[in-house]
């Protein structure tokens, strides 16, 4: 009864609070949260329905799906606690074990160590072992308490692949310590002995089945811990999952006064003990203090977090969400995880609930739902810079110390929650939080997936630029001692400072990861020498400045800064006068040296100057070498990002002007538009290989004449009239411009409704253009034909093809190109990424299925909807992420809808979504449309994916991308990019090997002549028209002949094979008069009757292919076993 009342009250309070919050947050919410907020998640739907109008909207939009997914997530990631009762048994057993360990008498360090050694246990001394002559003693006494703490105790643990981890805090009795033990590691020495004694006690008991190992808590050498895992056999039944029990050491909260362990105090005093005045000047030992303090506060934090979850019932769920989010991004409590894990997350939320902002409002309300809490916490982390603006909750003491790391100081307990974070890991956390906050306000993408499901800890995908530095070379050459975690931390922060200063605004984020420590056996000394490990470094770049060649430093007049700049850069710094008259300290880099980009060389220079030559030499620029491998050619200075394609705009503009100026045409010209060229797959490579630039499509120009009633009302006549116009324009162009040559190119002479011809114009400077006439009336004429014709009418089919052709050439095509070129100036890495993707597609023989435009749109998605990342800053990252996206994209049930314009056009987006649903309704088997790719400029979604890729090809596309994505994720920094481009020929039924020499001879014979000379002298036999790709023609024809029964795969650019798969469904069919393939007659006995059927004549077909290809085909190999 009382319970029920309390529930009701809570409900009412929640409602009240909800309303109040609504008022407080409305502006903010509307601005940033959009519709994504889910009010009061724990209510059922019916309650919402009865509520006032504003909750309707939250259900009406996407958020209800989001909420359902969130609930499902919470359900699946958490262990089912009531099924875990056996864990309690295990824990009880362990506790009993520990409690039965007999006390030791106090003894000196040496005595204690020897005693343990005799029992085959190595005491895990922190960092440096204590000197043997110290006066104090070590001993063991029965723990004052043993408690389960951590996420398992708080019921916010995650189910993970490695099984469940349970934290057990063993509180050391205060009697072991003296008041001054907080100084000079004394506490930690005693603690280490205490731990060794426990290890000894457990391992020597025969009735305890635990496997024991030492490890470092949070990678910190100060805090060794024991990890107990249950031994192989288990007596608890077959369903037991693995449990790892971490035995943490805790101390009484009042063991040492909090003030002594304030982050600003020094607790490690070297040399003689001296007066207190000097003490103040010694550097504070924040990490040491906080480590000690955190051990004393284990229980307090458990209580604190528990009471928080009592006050706010969504708190545990918010913690779980946070843990998932952190884990997917590779963050963790340990130093190698960046020092921000689920404990820190929970504490941050709990503290934020107590804090108020400048206006006196609390930052987090207790009435928030778990998702709101999650989001608000992320927002806090993203927007508040805790380094320059430390947050102090209930300040007990004033903050008076500048520190390097971020500070979130819990005044009530006297500890900086973020003490383990370095500047670099804090930067990474903020960056991730910012990206997620941005993501959650972008309603066009699947927020849930990118926020919680995607694994984002692969450095090559997360960062624009990655490298590895062997930590060994960062230390002074003389020392030969093993490198400890603290040494490594110091080195990496030194490295951070150097790179941070040197890179200045080239990089937005510089993340240097700490190497992780390993567990070690209790019977051996700790072995965590890190000197041979590599530190991975990830950069997020400001793409537009990252590869600049001139670094403009401080003004020469600013003496202080200039001196500093010179000190950092040494002789590289020089004074330069700029256009505006100002004189700056400047660095200038040559654009290209070997295969090293400016960025790589400037970093090598910094390291050589400030560390050592060896350091500069041994740094591994992973992105750099990947770029080289992907583009497989000498990279140019900017090719890591490769600026937008080289558009011969002066020529184009000139021609456009000339066309505009033509006078004596039957109709006036309304508009002349140049369509931007498609981004080609590294043009220089092709021209090197084939000496053939002819294969690139000439620039398209569309001419639109003034509307006139004289245009015929018949589609065929319109096409003829367009040809007439083209001829007229060509004639006049040739007459007015010297050196210009034109020739008419027929386009489609099977479909009379489609554009019949284009005029190819080449100017004296050897650039070529394609002129077409765009007549707007065409569309309505085609639509009329479509509406009239019956389904079986061949005219209807032709009209449909004509319509899609018209849209591609005159409407969507130019719009797509324009959007692409404006976006590629916004994202410098875009065009290079598109190039890499096209190369990948071609190498995997998908040229004919995945159109250029589709590749461009898929790559664009990586940039305009970067999801949980920021837009990529280099080609490699853009390429990898696009592959990852394709591998994840479930095109069967999800459309891809892009927002290419700047303003959000909800209407178009909605229209595209409806189109997708309509497609799936009328064509559920996806025979006509497999991938739906729409955008706000093209809601139809089928312009570039109509019929191609077919379902089979799309599935192959996805599976190839999945294989590539797996490779990228598994290999991480060791990835060899060449592997991504190796086609798997064994998958195909037969392989047609082509004679490429013939093809390149054909095209290079064009190269030797000036363009279109052949047209003036047609009689010459040897002349071949421009753009002659015999292989492409052959492939086209193969497809039109056998496309129904064979799936062909080839690389249109320079593949030497055409591969084929027999369509398994069409292998054997019943008899039909008409056939599209050579067949073999068969008689099948079925149900006592002979049924006439035919089977594909495979040899006959291959023989036909061999005849068709003639001298172009070297050989046909059959790979399949049949």
């Amino acid at each position, binding site marked *: 009864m009382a319970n029920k009342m309390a529930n009701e009250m809570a409900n009412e309070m929640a409602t009240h609070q909800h309303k109040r919050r609504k008022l407080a947050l409305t502006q903010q919410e509307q601005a940033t949260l959009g519709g994504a907020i889910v009010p009061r998640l724990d209510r059922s739907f019916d309650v919402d*329905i009865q509520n006032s109008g504003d909750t309707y909207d939250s259900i009406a939009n996407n958020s*209800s799906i989001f909420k359902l997914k969130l609930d499902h997530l919470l359900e699946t990631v958490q262990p089912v606690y009531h099924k875990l009762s056996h864990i309690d048994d295990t824990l009880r057993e362990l506790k009993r074990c520990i409690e039965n360990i007999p006390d030791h008498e106090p003894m000196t360090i040496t005595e204690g160590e020897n005693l343990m050694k005799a029992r085959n246990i190595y005491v895990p001394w922190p960092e440096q072992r204590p000197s043997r002559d110290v006066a104090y003693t070590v001993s063991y006494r029965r723990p004052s308490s043993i408690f389960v703490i951590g996420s398992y105790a708080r019921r916010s643990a995650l189910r993970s692949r490695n099984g469940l981890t349970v934290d057990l805090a063993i509180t050391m009795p205060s009697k072991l310590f003296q008041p001054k033990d907080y100084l000079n590691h004394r506490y930690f020495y005693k603690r280490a002995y205490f731990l060794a004694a426990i290890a000894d006690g457990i391992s020597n008991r025969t009735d305890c089945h635990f496997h024991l190992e030492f490890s470092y808590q949070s990678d910190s050498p100060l805090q060794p811990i024991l990890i107990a895992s249950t031994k192989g056999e288990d007596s608890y039944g077959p369903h037991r999952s693995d449990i790892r029990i971490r035995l943490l050491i805790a101390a009484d909260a009042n063991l040492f006064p909090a003030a002594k362990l304030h982050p600003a105090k020094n607790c490690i005093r070297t040399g003689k003990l001296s007066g207190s005045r000097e003490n103040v000047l010694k550097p504070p030992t924040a990490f040491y203090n906080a480590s000690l303090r955190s051990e004393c506060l284990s229980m307090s934090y458990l209580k604190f977090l528990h009471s928080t979850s009592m006050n706010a019932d969504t708190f545990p769920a918010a913690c779980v969400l946070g843990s998932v989010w952190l884990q997917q991004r590779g963050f963790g409590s340990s130093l190698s995880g960046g020092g921000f894990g689920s404990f820190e997350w929970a504490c941050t939320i709990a503290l934020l609930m107590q804090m108020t902002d400048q206006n006196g409002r609390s930052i987090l309300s207790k009435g928030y739902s778990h998702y709101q809490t999650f989001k608000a916490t992320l927002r806090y982390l993203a927007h508040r810079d805790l380094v320059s603006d430390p947050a102090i909750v209930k300040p007990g003491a004033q903050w008076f110390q500048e520190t390097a790391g971020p500070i979130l100081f819990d005044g009530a307990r006297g500890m900086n929650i973020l003490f383990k974070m370095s500047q670099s890991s804090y930067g990474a956390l903020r960056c991730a939080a910012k990206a997620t906050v941005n993501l959650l306000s972008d309603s066009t993408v699947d927020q849930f997936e990118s926020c919680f499901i995607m694994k984002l800890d692969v450095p090559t995908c997360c960062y624009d630029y990655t490298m590895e530095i062997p930590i060994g070379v960062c230390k002074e050459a003389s020392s030969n001692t093993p490198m400890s975690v603290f040494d490594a931390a110091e080195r990496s922060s030194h490295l951070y400072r150097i790179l941070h200063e040197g890179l200045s605004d080239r990089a937005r984020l510089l993340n240097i990861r700490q190497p992780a420590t390993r567990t070690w056996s209790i019977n051996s000394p700790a072995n965590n020498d890190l000197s041979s490990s590599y530190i991975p470094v990830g950069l997020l770049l400001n793409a537009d400045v990252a590869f600049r060649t001139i670094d403009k430093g401080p003004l020469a007049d600013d003496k202080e800064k200039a001196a500093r700049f010179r000190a950092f850069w040494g002789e590289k710094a020089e004074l330069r006068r700029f256009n505006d008259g100002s004189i700056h300290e400047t660095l200038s880099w040559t654009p290209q040296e070997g295969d090293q980009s400016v960025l790589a060389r400037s970093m090598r220079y910094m390291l050589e100057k400030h560390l050592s030559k060896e350091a500069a030499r041994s740094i591994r620029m992973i992105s750099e070498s990947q770029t080289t491998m992907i583009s497989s050619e000498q990279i140019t200075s900017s090719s890591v990002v490769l600026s937008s394609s080289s558009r011969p705009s002066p020529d184009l503009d000139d021609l456009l002007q000339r066309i505009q100026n033509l006078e004596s045409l039957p109709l006036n010209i309304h508009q002349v538009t140049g369509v931007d060229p498609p981004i080609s797959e590294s043009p220089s490579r092709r021209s090197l290989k084939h000496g053939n630039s002819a294969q690139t499509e000439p620039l398209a120009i569309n001419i639109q004449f003034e509307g006139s009633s004289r245009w015929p009302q*018949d589609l065929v006549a319109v096409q003829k009239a367009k040809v007439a116009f083209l001829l007229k324009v060509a004639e006049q162009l040739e007459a007015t411009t010297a050196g210009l040559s034109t020739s008419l190119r027929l386009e489609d*002479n099977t479909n009379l409704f489609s554009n019949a011809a284009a005029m190819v114009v080449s100017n004296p400077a050897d650039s070529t253009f394609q002129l077409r006439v765009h007549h707007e009336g065409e569309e309505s004429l085609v639509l009329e034909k479509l509406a009239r014709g019956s389904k079986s009418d061949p005219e209807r089919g032709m009209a449909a093809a004509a319509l899609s052709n018209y849209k591609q050439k005159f409407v969507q095509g130019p719009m797509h190109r324009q959007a692409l070129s404006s976006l590629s100036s916004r994202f410098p890495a875009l065009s290079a990424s598109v190039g890499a993707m096209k190369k990948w597609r071609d190498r995997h023989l998908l040229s004919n299925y995945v159109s250029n435009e589709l590749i461009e749109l898929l790559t664009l998605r990586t940039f305009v909807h970067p999801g949980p990342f920021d837009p990529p800053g280099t080609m490699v990252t853009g390429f990898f992420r696009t592959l990852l996206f394709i591998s994840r994209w479930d095109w069967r*049930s999800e459309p891809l809808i892009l927002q290419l314009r700047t303003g959000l056009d909800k209407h178009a987006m909605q229209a595209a979504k409806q189109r997708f649903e309509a497609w799936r309704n009328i064509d559920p088997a996806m025979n006509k449309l497999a991938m739906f790719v729409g955008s706000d400029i093209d809601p139809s979604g089928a312009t570039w994916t109509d019929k191609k890729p077919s379902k089979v090809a799309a599935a192959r596309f996805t599976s190839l991308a999945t294989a590539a994505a797996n490779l990228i994720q598994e290999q991480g920094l060791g990835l060899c990019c060449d592997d991504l481009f190796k086609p798997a020929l064994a998958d195909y039924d037969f392989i047609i090997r082509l004679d490429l020499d013939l093809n390149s001879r*054909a095209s290079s014979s064009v190269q030797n002549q000036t363009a279109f000379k052949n047209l003036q002298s047609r009689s010459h036999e040897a002349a*071949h028209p421009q753009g002659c790709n015999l292989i492409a023609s052959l492939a086209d024809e193969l497809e039109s002949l056998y496309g129904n029964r064979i799936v062909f795969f080839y690389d249109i650019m320079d593949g030497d094979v055409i591969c084929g798969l027999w369509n398994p469904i069409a292998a054997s069919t019943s008899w039909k008069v008409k056939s599209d393939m050579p067949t073999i*007659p068969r008689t099948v006995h079925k149900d006592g009757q002979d049924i006439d059927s035919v089977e594909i004549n495979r040899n006959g077909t291959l*023989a036909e292919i061999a*005849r068709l290809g003639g001298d172009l085909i070297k050989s046909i190999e059959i790979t399949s076993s049949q």
Partner: protein
Amino acid sequence: MDTPEDVPAQIAGYTIFPLSIPSLPSFPVSAVHYLYVAPHQPKVPSPTASRSLFLTNTPFDSTELHLKILFSTQLGLPSGRVEDVEFEGRSRRNDSVEPAASHDANPTSSKKRKRSKELDYERELESATTLPAVWDRELRSNGRTAVIRFVDRSSMETALKAIKAVRKRRHKPIWGEGLQDKLPPLGSARYLKHHELLFPDKSKILENVNKYMTAYAAREDAQKKLHARQRQEPDEEGFITVGRGGKSNAARQEAAQALAVKQKEKQKGLEDFYRFQSREKNKQRAGELKRRFDEDREKVRQMRDRRGKLMV
């Protein structure tokens, strides 16, 4: 791979005619191709049907020459017995012949002169519709059927008999034997020629376009005149046909549409005039929301089934 012995002698009434395909260096396998042959029985009976054979599953590179040689010399019959070969998706030559033939078949005496004039530009139009061919040799991709017309019925029957006998022969007729040099070659030469043909002479195209446009204009003109006449003259029952091309026709239509839109808008304003209307609307909206919520739930469930469980 398949010996002809596995293959039945007939399928669905068609006699099977095995051909041996010469092997090529690029594909050194001697393959067998099967033609299916039967007496021609068109849906619409034609006078020549009785002396014709119907062929299906013809090779992609079949030409008239191929089949003529095959059905005379290669079958061991005297040459010149095959009169004509007609492929599916007939060649243009036949196309242009037929309408003329039908025109000859039923001459209408009174309007003959006029009709023939009309047909003149129709024919002009027809012939100028297509631009010059871009391939030097057509391939049989569509249906792969053909009709072979023999000079008389008996040669047709002899041919059919000879085909039946082929089964027992050791050496099957070789497809395209001795024809290599008589036809435009396939392979690179074909595609080079294609690229050449893609760039036709501009003057020829201009001629073609002019011819078409003139014929088109003539037809338009004639149609306009016809419509104009129809608008003025009552027909036998005294009605005047209303057709396109009247003076104010289009404008009137637009005005009517605009009026309809206006009317619609007017009605719109009254939808929540009564209280019950708005109440009903709310109810509808709530129902809609609930429906959508259920849909979403279903969607998530499906997603869950598809994806399986998440492990972090």
